[in-house]
């Protein structure tokens, strides 16, 4: 797998701030991988996401996306075609009165022929499971459905990378599941590179790689199992670990021989049951 996004010693400071939001950050994202990003408020994770398609550009260092320097204004449209961004509030991202018109907005602006637009819109709606509702009014959809329409709108651009900045923060549990399942499928079945910024530990469990940001730098980088096993370190960074890890951690302290890396509920239960039978 090749590198699709590369951060080289990236610094970034918002004009009104005294402190840098990104503080010499280095990062490579592999094509086709699923990367989750955690960090408390103000750790720089949204700023990181906004650097991935040139909404923000570094004050020092550089970001390369498929070889394009994000600071190169002449190639901004190319860049935006490579990397699509989905934000927290679905209501702020939907512009049209009919689902399929909304998804068609970007490819229309690319000046594509009508048949190609049709193909892309239908394809994108099928990928997020919203094809059946293509003629509905977006404002009558649930939060999860709206967010999937927003994702389809980005997919219709034909991007290689999908970056989602807390896409489930405003959704109910049902909507959260819908979005997470959709994103995971896009990565696993379509080979889409996914970067998911989130507050929810549980949403990171299925990722290939988990980054924990702190004060504009990458504090931890590894598989979810590796990272969540570091319970004290996570706490020191102002973060929780999943309930499964927390339980296994405390049972170990009580002398029970259980592993720390059984992240999902069933493997956690399996590990505990095995330890008790021993």
């Amino acid at each position, binding site marked *: 797998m090749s590198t699709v996004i590369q951060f080289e010693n990236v610094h970034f400071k918002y004009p009104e701030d005294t402190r840098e939001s990104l503080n010499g950050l280095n990062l490579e994202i592999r094509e086709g991988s699923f990367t989750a990003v955690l960090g*408390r*408020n*103000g750790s720089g994770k949204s700023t990181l996401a906004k650097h991935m398609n040139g909404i923000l550009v570094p004050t020092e260092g550089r970001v390369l996306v498929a070889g394009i320097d994000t600071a190169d204004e002449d190639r901004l449209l190319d860049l935006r075609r490579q990397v699509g961004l989905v934000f*927290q509030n679905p209501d702020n991202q939907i512009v049209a009165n009919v689902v399929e018109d909304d998804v068609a907005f970007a490819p229309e602006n690319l000046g594509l022929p009508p048949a190609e637009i049709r193909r892309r819109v239908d394809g994108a709606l099928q990928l997020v499971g919203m094809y059946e509702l293509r003629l509905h009014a977006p404002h009558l959809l*649930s*939060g999860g459905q709206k967010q999937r329409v927003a994702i389809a709108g980005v997919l219709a651009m034909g991007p290689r990378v999908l970056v989602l900045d*807390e896409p489930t*923060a*405003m959704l*109910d*549990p*049902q*909507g959260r599941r819908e979005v997470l399942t959709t994103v995971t499928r896009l990565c696993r079945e379509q080979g889409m590179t996914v970067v998911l910024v989130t*507050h929810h530990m*549980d949403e990171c469990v299925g990722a290939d790689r988990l980054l924990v940001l702190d004060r504009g730098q990458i504090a931890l980088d590894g598989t979810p199992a590796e990272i969540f096993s570091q319970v004290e370190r996570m706490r020191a960074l*102002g*973060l*929780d670990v*999943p*309930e*499964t890890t*927390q*339980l296994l951690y*405390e*049972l170990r302290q*009580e002398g*029970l021989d259980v592993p720390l890396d059984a992240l999902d*509920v*069933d493997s*956690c*239960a*399996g590990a*505990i*049951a095995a*330890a*008790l*039978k021993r």
Partner: protein
Amino acid sequence: MAEIKVEQLRHVYSPQTPFERTAIEAVSLILPQGQFVGVLGHTGSGKSTFIQHLNALLLPSGGRVLCDGEDINRDKVSRRDIKWKVGLVFQYPEYQLFEETVYKDIAFGPGNMGLSKEEIDERVREAAGFVGVEALLDRSPLELSGGQKRRVAIAGVIAMRPEVLVLDEPTAGLDPEGCGQILDNIRAYKARTGATVLVVSHDMDASAALAERLLVFNEGRLVMDGPPEEIFSQPERLTGMGLDVPRPTAIAMALRRQGLRLPGAVYTHAQLKAGLLAAAREAERGAGPC
């Protein structure tokens, strides 16, 4: 002090139109002063419609809402007065901040109650204290972080000193630290004032840990009403309604599927841990020399 009684409440949106929809039906319950109540149910279950009846924001299509025995909808005056007794904090209340300073925003509610300047000042400072924003009173709400804005919005309702405080998804969209602060603020308000608190939440873990009573709405009806240990002793019923269960409950369900015996209702981390340690001790005894 306020006791709320809801009798056979029914609400129909857009009646006698093609969009007519019955949002809640046959809801009856009593909320004694001072309870901490969690309100559960998935989107569209009727829980938001229900809470908007508690201070006469919505008028019943059928049934009544009583406060200390009096129908809150009997006339204009009662419908106004109930808004001071029952304070409602909506979802994403930070979008409703509109004044130039945090102080003015919090003062807006009490200002409408016809209080003296001194009394308004006292209430603003007290409410700001509850949510920990005393240091921000002269700032513009626009300069605050999401969590701070949320707390200012809650202070605006608390400043009316409601005897019943109703919050719709008060922690939605906040990071774990922000969630914890808001829940601490609500607990502090309840402890200090003895107010009744209703919290609508999708966060089962928080509901299980905080509430002494849970209401579960499904398809417009109040289908479960009881203490957490009773509600979470039937986790399959909750998952059957498309609801989550607290994470410790989910792990306990998986452990039972593995054949492990755990005591009745498990819905907090402490219960799960205690149950497992007891099981471990038992296993040790069983394996020891007989």
